[in-house]
């Protein structure tokens, strides 16, 4: 159970195409009675070390008491199953960020779509000797 910054959900697709951008949202609820600073971070577990990070363009926010804040992030899907690790932190009066909560979610690689040709047109024709 988190102390103040409770991760309540990771919104992410269940599968994604290898090499594609995966957009996620981490929802964190401030369980404190007053406003506090909350920050999120994330890492990807899929067999490489160190774990690659997840980009959060705006990783922190001042969140009112009892309010749930959504943090948008993204990463590039690897070619294998990946476990998202999302972390939350709260900002202390002493000026330090304190780790608070963790949640995970698995994303499976999507099977490549079958080969498809959409159109063809002749764009030029010329005599060659």
């Amino acid at each position, binding site marked *: 159970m988190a102390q103040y910054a409770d991760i309540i959900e990771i919104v992410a697709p269940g599968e994604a195409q290898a090499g594609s951008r995966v957009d996620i949202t981490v929802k964190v609820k401030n369980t404190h009675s007053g406003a506090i600073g909350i920050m999120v971070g994330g890492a990807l577990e899929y067999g490489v070390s160190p774990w690659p990070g997840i980009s959060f363009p705006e990783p922190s926010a001042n969140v009112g008491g009892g309010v749930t804040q959504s943090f948008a992030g993204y990463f590039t899907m690897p070619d294998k199953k990946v476990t998202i690790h999302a972390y939350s932190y709260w900002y202390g009066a002493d000026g330090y960020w304190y780790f608070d909560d963790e949640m995970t979610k698995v994303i499976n690689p999507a099977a490549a779509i079958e080969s498809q040709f959409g159109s*063809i047109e002749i764009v030029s024709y*010329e005599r060659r000797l």
Partner: protein
Amino acid sequence: MGAVFIPSEFGIVFLPLANVQVKAGDKLRITSRYSHRGKAESVPLYAAIGNSGWAGFDEVLNASKTINVPETADWQFYEDYVDITITTALAKGLYDLYAKIGGTIPKVISPTLYDVVEVLVTGNSEFGEITINSYAKV
């Protein structure tokens, strides 16, 4: 003669296409643009010269080559060409063109270009006349 480039087909404006003149022994280079997505694949790019009619396209000459497309999640456009060697199988006249990807069961077929190939026929070898221009002791 330079290549004949097909204008993009927007709306319903009809633009008559210039024809290209060829004769036996020439090659006709037909360049096509196509789109693909999905898994990588090697397939034939095929083009034919002939006559389009009510029963379909009556091919007289054709050629193909293998093209390789990489795996992509999104639609990608590519261009490639096929050279058809012109032979005496083509009589004098105007012919149509089309291209496709795939074999017996094509994956995609281009619109037909009508009367864009004009075949010229060179006559058989003939001598018209001969005269003596000079004579001298050697």
